[in-house]
Structure formats: structure tokens, C-alpha cells
């Protein structure tokens, strides 16, 4: 019997064997391969082109009891605002309610009889704008635009003898300066945020499956019977997914620059560093899930459980500041929250390292803690 060689706690040869094997398997797994490229493209298309949080051209019906210069220019102003498309003219209020109830119209504008007469007399008449407000996003922006219509109509039509009806100038004004995204283009916010969502979704799921797949196919027993060490298996399995994460990040960066024209204010190095941090955090989560899960189905279910709070609370879809305190606490644990701040900070605001630091270290802490949990749960034996 040969003398007992001291047993190396880490062998590059074994580790490289695992890495090679994972790449070989990945290359033959077309579905996974398709997912790597397919998910970013599909999500980019959906969020970039289909979803709009500032909807325009909403169907509007009008009930006009009286036709005059004022009512005509009011309707013209609505059309010009881009928010309202006047699709039909109705005769009474009941018809208006029916249009709203059936969803034929999002808005019904009701101009009462004698509107012009009262206006000229200085009686401050009202027009009624009824809105289907079930979905606040659909009506919100349009309604705030409607409030400004009055002044635009007034400044156009209230001239000459009617000039005295012009509202007086307010005693002071608030000047608004929109920074970083002056035109308020939704895509500029959504597309960079999408990077974190896609990395979280695909990487947690794929690494979650990585270990459970070996267990389900019975190959784990074989691995455990060889001298390969847990740390070699775990880290070796992660390498291909780091590469996948970087590929996905690159796809999204290229698309945001050349397809959606998102202005890049910050450094690309910082973007990749942030991406690497998020990749590390996600991979440790995935490995932990797959150590806990008994089979691939359980791993998938746990992934969904992790994914939902990430997408809803991280500030990707809804503003962080608008959430109640308890939800903000949950969000403060999730790495995606910090990544979203980082990526938007880098791309849109051009943040420097000092600005970024408060969002960098929490991701590091998260990764470290989860890694400890993963080590705790890795099963060295079949027990």
C-alpha cells in the first residue's frame, strides 16, 4: 500500500474537471442554451416595446350639448395633448356611463348646455371629465394633463373683450428641473433595471437545478464516491454560470445602447463590476436552494418564491420610496434592490465610486452570509 499522501483540501485538477464537465453538458443542453439568450431578448422586447407606464391615445367619448368656439378648441386641445383620442360623440349621460362600463371609452367628457354663455358671463362653469379609474396607471398621467388644458384653451380664446376672464398669474411659480431622464422615457428606467431581473431569474434557477439534477439522475452518488471535494464541485459548477451571466449582461447592455438608445453616463467597468456582484449573490442563492431542495421541481418552486419579492419589491416595477416600512425592510435584504440602484446610478446618473459604495457593500454581505448557509447545507454523504 502506498504511503498516505496528505490530502489536498483543494485540487485544481479536480476542479477543472468539474468545470469542463459543466461546459460540455451545457453545450449539449439546447433548451438551457436557448434560455440564456432567449430570456433576455424576450424580456427586452416585452418591457422595452410592449409595456408603457405613460399610456397615450386613450379612447375618449364626448357629450357636447352645445357647439361653440370654446368647446371646439377644448376638444382640439385634448387631441393635441396626445393623451385623448376622441372616438365617438354621445347624446346623454346614460350613454356615457354605458361607454365607460363596457370599456368602449376610458374617458367621457361632458360639456353642458349654456357652457359658453356662462363662461362669457364670468360664472366659471364646469365641464365634467369622467374617467374609468380602475387602473390608476392608465388614467393618472392623462388626468394631470387634462388639468393643464384649461390654461391652454384660455390663453388661445380669451382675448380682446374677454381678456378680463383670463386667470391672474399666480404669485410665485415652482420651476421643475427633471434630472437624468428629462423626457421621462420609461425605457431609460426599465431597460437597465431589466438586467438585474434577468440575471436573478435565470441564474438562481439554473444553479438551483444544477445540484438537484445530479441528485435526481443518480450521478451525485458517483460524485460523492470519488475524492472530489464539496468546494470543488460547488465552485466548479458555478463557473459556467458566471460566464452565462456576463453574456446576458452584455446582451442587455448592447440592446439598451443601440436598440433603446439609453444614454450611458457612467463607466462600463462599474457596470460589469455591479453585474459580477449580483451574479455572485444569485449563484450562492441558487446553490443554497439546490442543496436544500430534494428534487428539481422543489428547486423550481423555491426559485419562484425567491424571485417574486425580488421583482416586486426591488424598485424594478414600483418605486422603493412608495412602499410601507415593512416592505422596505424586506427589500433591503434583497440584492436586486441594491443592484437596481447601482445600475441606474451608473448608467443614468453617472455615479462615481463614492456614490456607489453604500449599495455595493450590502451585496457583498448578502453573498457572504448565503455562502455560509450553503456550506452548512451541502451534503457530503448520502445521509
Amino acid at each position, binding site marked *: 500500500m502506498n504511503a498516505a499522501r496528505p490530502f489536498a483540501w483543494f485540487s485544481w485538477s*479536480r476542479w477543472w474537471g468539474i468545470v469542463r464537465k459543466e461546459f*460540455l453538458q451545457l453545450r449539449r443542453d439546447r433548451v438551457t442554451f436557448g434560455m440564456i439568450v432567449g430570456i433576455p431578448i424576450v424580456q427586452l422586447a416585452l418591457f422595452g416595446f410592449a409595456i408603457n407606464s405613460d399610456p397615450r391615445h386613450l379612447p375618449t367619448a364626448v357629450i357636447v350639448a352645445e357647439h361653440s368656439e370654446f368647446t371646439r378648441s377644448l376638444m382640439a386641445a385634448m387631441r393635441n395633448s396626445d393623451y385623448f383620442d376622441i372616438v365617438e360623440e354621445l347624446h346623454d349621460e346614460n350613454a356615457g356611463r354605458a361607454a365607460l362600463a363596457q370599456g368602449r371609452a376610458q374617458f367621457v367628457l361632458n360639456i353642458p348646455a349654456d357652457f359658453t354663455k356662462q363662461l362669457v358671463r364670468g360664472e366659471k362653469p364646469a365641464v365634467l371629465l369622467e374617467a374609468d379609474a380602475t387602473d390608476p396607471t392608465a388614467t393618472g398621467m392623462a388626468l394631470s394633463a387634462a388639468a393643464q388644458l384649461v390654461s391652454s384653451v384660455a390663453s388661445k380664446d380669451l382675448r380682446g373683450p374677454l381678456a378680463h376672464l383670463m386667470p391672474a398669474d399666480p404669485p410665485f411659480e415652482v420651476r421643475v428641473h427633471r434630472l437624468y431622464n428629462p423626457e421621462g422615457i420609461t425605457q431609460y428606467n426599465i431597460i437597465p433595471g431589466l438586467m438585474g431581473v434577468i440575471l436573478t431569474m435565470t441564474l438562481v434557477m439554473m444553479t438551483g437545478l444544477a445540484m438537484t439534477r445530479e441528485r435526481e439522475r*443518480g450521478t451525485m*452518488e458517483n460524485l460523492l464516491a*470519488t475524492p472530489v471535494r464539496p468546494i470543488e464541485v460547488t465552485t466548479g459548477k458555478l463557473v459556467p454560470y458566471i460566464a452565462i451571466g456576463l453574456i446576458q449582461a452584455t446582451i442587455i447592455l448592447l440592446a439598451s445602447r443601440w436598440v433603446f438608445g439609453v444614454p450611458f453616463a457612467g463607466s462600463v467597468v462599474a457596470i460589469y463590476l455591479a453585474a459580477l456582484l449580483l451574479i455572485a449573490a444569485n449563484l450562492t442563492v441558487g446553490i443554497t436552494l439546490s442543496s436544500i431542495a430534494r428534487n428539481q421541481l422543489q428547486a423550481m418552486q423555491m426559485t419562484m418564491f425567491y424571485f417574486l419579492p425580488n421583482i416586486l419589491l426591488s424598485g424594478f416595477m414600483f418605486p422603493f420610496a412608495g412602499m410601507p416600512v415593512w416592505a422596505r425592510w424586506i427589500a433591503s435584504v434583497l440584492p436586486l434592490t441594491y443592484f437596481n440602484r447601482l445600475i441606474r446610478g451608473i448608467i443614468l446618473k453617472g455615479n462615481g465610486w463614492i456614490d456607489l459604495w453604500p449599495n455595493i457593500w450590502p451585496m457583498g454581505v448578502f453573498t457572504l452570509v448565503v455562502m455560509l448557509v450553503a456550506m452548512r447545507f451541502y451534503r457530503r*454523504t*448520502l*445521509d
Partner: protein
Amino acid sequence: MSDAADADVLTIDVQGLNKHFGDKHVVNDLSMQVRKGEIFGFLGPNGSGKTTSIRLMCGLLTPDSGSGRCLGYDILRETEQIKRRVGYMTQRFSYWEDLTIRENLDFVARLYEMKDRQQVVDEALERLGLASRADQLTGALSGGWKQRLALAACMLHKPQLLLLDEPTAGVDPTARRDFWEELHRLAADGISVLVSTHYMDEAERCHKLAYIAYGKLLVQGTADEVVAAQHLTTFAVHGHELAALSERLRGQAGVEQTVAFGSLLHVTGSDAAQLEASLRRVAGEGLRIEHIDTSLEDVFIHLMKRSTDNYAGTS
């Protein structure tokens, strides 16, 4: 260690191993020894704890109590050393079906940090007769070829002990014979083999046997020792309508079991005189009755029945 003492070197030496899964006592106080260069057969019904016992010996499972050494290393503390020197072939094919044959062997060679990896893999492929199909995906192989690949892969790092868990399940007779010839060649080279099986012909080819049922090792020794230890007498009855005869014999004094082998009925019991008397009385004319040596199969069926009864009695 000197070569002279080889015959007495214990490759496996375990005492009082116990393993529970929940409230199931899967391995119950297992003690056994396997010598260097010995082929040790592990027999017993499904779910009797054979696989668990094998896993305990190579460090895949930790025993709840008990101790032992495998290749001179402690099975509790030195599992890493054991893993390097043991070749374990799982019951279910456990190589990667989405890797080619060569990739699988190459991967295994890397895990054992072998030098001259390329050469070792090439030689293994040559020996297997798979050199021309080395780049085929493993998943496309038939059962017999998978089994040969699995043996080649677990032999790649030249282990001193082979643990084979039902290696020939579902393999055709010719392939099985080749497989056992290979095992005997390896044993002659000083490699110890612990092999579990359900086949009697394979059991008879082992140097030593152990029968395990419900986690308990009931008997161990050479095939002859195992047979002799049960003190059974067997008669063979030649003739027709043996099923009816078997039915009539059941419950008669001295008759403990009847097993049909085609046109032959083995009737076994521990009390030779009583057994023969009952047999003569019930069988009547026209049937040829002869006293034969109790076969290993008769013994195993006897053991299996007895352990079932015991188990039913205790629970």
C-alpha cells in the same frame, strides 16, 4: 507492508455497524471481514440493506454506531483516503449520459488526479473495445455496454477494493460470464471485490458469501460452509403434476419448503427422517425420489423464509 502476509490482510474489517433511516433499522449490527484478493458475495432480498452496507464501507453514509477499517483506513474519519482507493459501481448507472464515453472516462481520471490521463483513458477504451465509439454519447449505449463502461470507469484509478452493487442486473448471460471472468482475473491480481447479486450462479463463483435480510447478516462463509451451517436435507422428486404434490406436501411434518425446478421438485427440511417419511407417504407411487445435496438456492430460500417469519414475529 510485506507481500508475504497478503493472504491475511483484511481489506474490510467492520464491527457492529448500525444505520437507521427514520425509524427503519436498515443495517443491524453488521460485522464482516473481506480478505485481500477475495471475491465476497453479498446476497439477500430487495431492501435487505445490501446497498446501505456497501455505502457505509466506502464513506458514502456515516454509520450511527459501530467502527471498522477499510484498506487500513478508519471508515469514520479517513473516508477521503478510502475514496481514493476504492472503486464503487452503483446499482443504477450513474455516469453522465450527456457526456461521450471518452469524456466520462476523462472526467473520472481528472477527479482521481491521474497522471498520463490521456494514455489511461485510451487504454481503458481499448480494453473495453469501445475505442471506435469513444465519441458516442453514453446515453445511447445499451444496458450491457453501460455496465462494462461503469466497470471500466470505476477501475480507472486502479483501486485496491471494488464495491459492486448488483453489477449484472439486466445483463445477458454471455456478458455476465465475461464480467465474472474479469472479476476473477482482478482478484488474482490481489484486488478485493465485494459484490451484491441476486443470481445463484454468481453466488457460487464467490470465494465467500454473506446472506443479509432485514439488515441482519444471517450467515457468512464459503458456499459449502453456508450450506453446511443450515443442516438441511433435500430430496428431489422427479415426475409430473408436481404442483399438486407441492400443495399436498405443504404443512406435512418435516417438510419446510418445496421449490419447483421444471420437472423436478426440491423438498427441504431440517429433520431428515421425518422429512423422508412424510415424503414417502404423500408422494405415493410412480415418482422417483432421490436424496441430493442441498443447493445454495435451497439454503437462500430457506433463509429468506425464516427471516420473513422472524420479522413478522417481532413486529
